[in-house]
């Protein structure tokens, strides 16, 4: 089979775009021989190679699993449409990059769920693997389909497809899963028995063992375990000590240009800034940092092993790392001679970080991005974004003085309580940025201020989880309004596809009934919905119609305070009372300070137990 497949690939791959996507063989990719391992795991990313290979979680899991002698973990990505067509016509099954083994022959296929609009690719990849789409149609001989990542915090829309979800950080629980599987495999393996045992492990949700009950008005009544021995809520797993947890240093170095083609150094997890729209800030709590010492040695090892020309400090909010200045100084000194640049994504720009940015610029120049998120102070208070206009102007002034002439400003439209005054605020901010540049340079020539807006999508486990999204026609009106007022020398405006934002809102707060919509959409050929050229809103609308599901019920409905939500089968350690209190403060436009530097806001994370500490 394997040899055959390689020959077939030789015949067809030179006909497809970017064949490197399907080849593997990269530096540091792992090869193991048949018979050397007992469990075969496919780490599946429901998007293109260049997107999936840019994802840190996948790299961590790949190396954790391959560090075990008894496991061989391989990668697989969604094939682009040109190759998919050939695969279907020549009957080539979806295969792993490392050993070119058909996915159907694996013990596990694990999907990384980063984005709701990749769900259609999950279905398509299963179909291309000749694996039944519905969990209930799979037998003992089929791979077990698992999934994790941020979208797993609301697993319900995929619960008819995925056998089990891993909730939270997988570094520890992944070993427990493999160990249990090995134990069950030596006996007479039975899929149902394995899943039942698995459901007892903390952090594992097996949806087939839970049943949703609905109220007459279509809202959810509860999700009930079918056996009393099963946990009533699935607690997320977290790693207690980030300094001691495994971190890979032999990253795979792709040949082709990928989205983030650089070494990644994770400096901390979690964020307690408390922005009220932000799901990551809620579900990844508590804040845990790696020490400067550990980071220094990791960085050296990673560059030695990869030869990358750039290392990126990854976290939710880089400037909140408590020893950022020290770390950047150590790394710039370390790498000066071999021309390795340092990049700081998610940097909150102020006078302090600007100094650091200048330091980095010694080696490599990068653009500056600011995310005020909303145009007026009132609305920024509503969303708890603790940035003032003075902060922003002061920072851009510093940036312009230091030689930058290209800044990007990110905003959201459709935030709760937003008015047209708030939209005007976006234009006012943009113009003040331009004026600041003129004050320094005397002209707007050479300046580029790019304003980007996305449409607000209410997310589970945030203070806005009860809120409606604004309707599509209103999104259009607000985008058009901005198009009109965001004009002038030096100003560019771009905006996110509103139809996608609408679907995102449906699936992010959806329930199990959306599974049917996914099947219908897949039948109609929906895939790569995040890619403009393939996204078809009409097909999705037909799918909703045929599945008799009203998308507006999920996206546009304002929920009652006491409604039970599909995602509440999951316990991320954030309490409903905390979210409700934050919601109240949002509508009063009251700011809640970061608990790292102020008093505890009682989010509930400490109750997850097991010696978790807040702060640093």
């Amino acid at each position, binding site marked *: 089979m394997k040899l055959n497949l390689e020959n077939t690939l030789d015949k067809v791959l*030179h006909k497809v775009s970017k064949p490197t996507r399907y*080849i593997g063989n990269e*530096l540091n990719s792992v090869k193991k021989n048949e018979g050397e391992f007992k469990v075969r795991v496919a780490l599946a990313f429901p998007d293109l190679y260049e997107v999936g290979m840019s994802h840190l979680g996948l790299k961590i899991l790949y190396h954790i699993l391959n560090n075990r002698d008894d496991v061989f973990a391989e990668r697989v990505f969604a094939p682009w449409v040109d190759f998919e067509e050939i695969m279907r016509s020549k009957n080539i099954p979806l295969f792993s990059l490392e050993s070119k083994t058909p996915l159907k022959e694996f013990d596990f296929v694990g999907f990384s769920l980063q984005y709701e609009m990749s769900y259609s690719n999950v279905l398509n990849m299963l179909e291309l693997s000749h694996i039944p789409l519905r969990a209930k149609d799979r037998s003992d001989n089929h791979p077990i389909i698992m999934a994790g990542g941020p979208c797993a915090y609301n697993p319900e829309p995929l619960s008819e497809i995925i056998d089990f979800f891993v909730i939270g950080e997988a570094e520890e629980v992944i070993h427990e899963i493999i160990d249990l599987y090995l134990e069950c495999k030596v006996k007479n393996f039975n899929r149902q028995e394995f899943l039942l045992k698995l459901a007892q492990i903390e952090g594992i949700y097996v949806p087939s063992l839970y049943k949703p009950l609905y109220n007459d008005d279509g809202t959810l009544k509860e999700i009930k375990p079918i056996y009393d021995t099963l946990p009533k809520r699935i607690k997320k797993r977290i790693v207690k000590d980030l300094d001691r947890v495994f971190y890979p240093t032999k990253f795979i170095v792709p040949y082709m240009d990928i989205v983030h083609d650089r070494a990644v150094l994770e400096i901390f997890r979690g964020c307690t800034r408390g922005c009220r729209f932000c799901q990551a800030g809620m579900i990844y709590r508590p804040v845990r940092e790696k020490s400067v010492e550990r980071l220094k040695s990791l960085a050296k090892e990673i560059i030695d092993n990869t030869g990358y020309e750039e290392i990126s400090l990854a976290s939710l909010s880089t400037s909140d790392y408590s020893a950022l200045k020290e770390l950047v100084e150590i790394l710039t000194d370390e790498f000066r001679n071999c021309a390795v640049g340092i990049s700081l994504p998610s940097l909150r720009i102020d006078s302090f970080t600007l100094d650091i940015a200048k330091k980095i610029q010694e080696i*490599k120049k990068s653009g500056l991005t600011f995310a005020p998120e909303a145009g007026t102070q009132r609305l920024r208070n509503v969303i708890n974004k603790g940035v003032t206009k003075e902060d922003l102007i002061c920072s851009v002034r510093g940036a312009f003085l230091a030689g930058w002439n290209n800044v990007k400003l990110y905003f959201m439209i459709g935030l709760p309580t937003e008015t047209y005054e708030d939209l005007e605020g976006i234009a006012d901010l943009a113009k003040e940025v331009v004026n600041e540049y003129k004050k320094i340079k005397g002209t707007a020539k050479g300046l580029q201020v790019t304003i980007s807006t996305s449409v607000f999508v209410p997310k589970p486990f945030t203070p806005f989880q009860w809120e409606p999204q604004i309707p599509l026609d209103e999104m259009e009106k607000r985008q058009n309004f901005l198009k009109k007022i965001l004009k002038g020398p030096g100003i560019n405006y771009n905006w996110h596809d509103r139809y996608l934002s609408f679907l995102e809102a449906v699936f992010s707060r959806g329930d199990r009934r959306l599974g049917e919509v996914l099947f219908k959409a897949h039948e109609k050929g929906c895939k790569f919905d995040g890619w403009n050229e393939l996204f078809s809103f009409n097909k999705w609308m037909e799918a909703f119609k045929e599945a008799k599901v009203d998308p507006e019920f999920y996206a546009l409905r304002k929920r009652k305070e006491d409604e039970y939500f599909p995602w509440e089968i999951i316990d991320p350690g954030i309490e409903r009372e905390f979210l409700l209190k934050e919601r109240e403060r949002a509508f009063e436009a009251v700011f809640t300070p970061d608990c790292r530097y102020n008093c505890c806001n009682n989010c509930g994370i400490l109750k997850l137990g097991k010696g978790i500490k807040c702060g640093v």
Partner: protein
Amino acid sequence: MEYRFRLSKGREVKYISQLDFARTIERALRRAKLKVKYSQGYNKKPIIIYGPALAVGITSNAEYLDVEFEEILPEEFLKRQLNNVLPEGLRVLHVRQKNGLIPLHKLNRSIFTVELFFENSIGKEALEKAIEGIKKSEEIYVRKKTHEEEKLVNIAPLIHGIFLEEFKLTQAQIVMELSTGQGGSANPFMIIPLIIENIGEATVYIHRNETFFEENGKRIFPM
């Protein structure tokens, strides 16, 4: 001090583009901890000059590049250090000080071996006739894609030699000498479909054996 490297590109890496190849070399040099000379300015880049680009899908024994180092280094040492860190499929075959060698941008010819594996057995005469046809043509137009546009290019003047080297029922080996580099370039992928269109479907393996400079029948090799 400048050194010239000759590398081979194997089956494992035959789909990587020239840009991918360049990135891979830069990163390997960093892993090898060799003191490469960097360009000045914000975006520091190692000073490397590459020979004529190889089309995607072709293996090779003749990929040349010149690298500038801060110091004088033994040639064998350079070869060993780089081979220790190169990924599977890429190998340094030879290293020499660049002094006195022909500049890489002047290279204008390549020799390729094309192996064809037909699905059914075919007639030798038919194949020879098709090759003869290519040889005799004064105009062979193929579509060439540049970044955005597609244009028709006459590649007949770029074909300097083509012959059948071996033949066995379902297998054939054809050798081609083609123009390469900035003055116009052709590759066997453009020619093979024209040869086999009336003969049968085949899996094609192409290998570049050598690249050199040619003028009035005189050849100068890069190393």
